[in-house]
């Protein structure tokens, strides 16, 4: 017992690292369930409005770039791979490898946000941001323009909340990288990395659903 509690990574209220790891993992999953419900509300709104205004949603969706959306999907899946590999290296006690893969994850996250930034600025330029300068008269009839505004409002709300989660994840990654370099974790105690991974993969999953729902609808759509 005294030998176990002497581990600096073990909090005193846990029996051992195994129990601590399990509790931390379940706590993270409980938090992720609340996150699922948070994004679930947005997906519900999307489902209802798309069901009501399918044509305006299809036409508006065609204004998004499939190439940028698909490219970012690949980037984000790649970042999930490097995140998983950073834990894989930690399990082998190779903390230098862990840092390398965490930095790669951070870089891929930055690439995603830069592409997203270019997409957003294009939308501002093309008057596709709901607000005073919103103008979809080029492709929507006057009576359906408000429905196009709904699509773009949802586009910015959903991708914006997703991007905010990316930014928070990247700040967490930075802190984690610093701690790994200071030697806080080892092959016996890497639970913090596991939690980081759970969060990062969750954000990846949200994008896996956002991409087809926002970018890929109505690609074969033709006016009735």
């Amino acid at each position, binding site marked *: 017992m005294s030998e176990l509690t002497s581990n600096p990574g073990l909090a005193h209220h846990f029996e051992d*690292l*195994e129990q601590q*790891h*399990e509790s931390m*993992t*379940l706590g993270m*999953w*409980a938090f*992720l*369930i609340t996150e*699922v*419900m948070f994004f*679930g*509300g947005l*997906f*519900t709104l999307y*489902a*209802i409005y798309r*069901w*009501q205004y399918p044509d305006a949603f299809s036409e508006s969706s065609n204004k998004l770039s*499939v190439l940028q959306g*698909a490219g970012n*999907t*690949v980037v984000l*899946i*790649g970042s*999930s*791979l490097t*995140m*998983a*590999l950073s834990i*894989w290296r930690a*399990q*082998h006690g190779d903390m230098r490898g862990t840092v390398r893969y965490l930095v790669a994850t951070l870089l891929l996250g930055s690439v995603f946000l830069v592409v997203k930034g270019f997409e957003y600025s294009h939308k501002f330029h093309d008057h596709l941001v709901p607000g005073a300068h919103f103008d979809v008269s080029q492709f929507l009839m006057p009576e359906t323009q408000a429905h196009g505004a709904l699509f773009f409002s949802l586009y910015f709300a959903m991708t914006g909340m997703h991007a905010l989660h990316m930014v928070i994840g990247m700040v967490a990654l930075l802190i984690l990288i610093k701690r790994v370099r200071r030697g806080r974790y080892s092959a*016996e*105690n890497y639970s913090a990395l*596991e939690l980081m*991974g*759970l969060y990062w*993969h*969750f954000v*990846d*999953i949200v994008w*896996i*659903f956002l*991409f*087809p*729902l926002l970018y*890929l*609808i109505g*690609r*074969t759509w033709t006016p009735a």
Partner: protein
Amino acid sequence: MSHNISSLGYYLRVFATLLILTAATVGAAFIDFGAFSTPIAMTIAMTKGLLVVLFFMHVWHSKKLTWLFAAAGFLWLVILIGMTFGDIVSRGWQGQPAL
């Protein structure tokens, strides 16, 4: 801690499958499947999400309690979307004003 340690190839195979499914969903979007387009896209997305949950998030090698937590999140999501969307869609079926 005595955790299951997977190989590099294991993670690369999951990654490759995710890339193939991404290509599949883009390809399918440009084929006219009519009313089946969205179900096809969602089936591919669910498959991708499941791969990430089971293998990247290590649920596959986790204890039953972790499986339960992951499943609970999905169950509550189904209730949230299913019941709300079901209500909207079924308006007007039995004489109530349609939305």
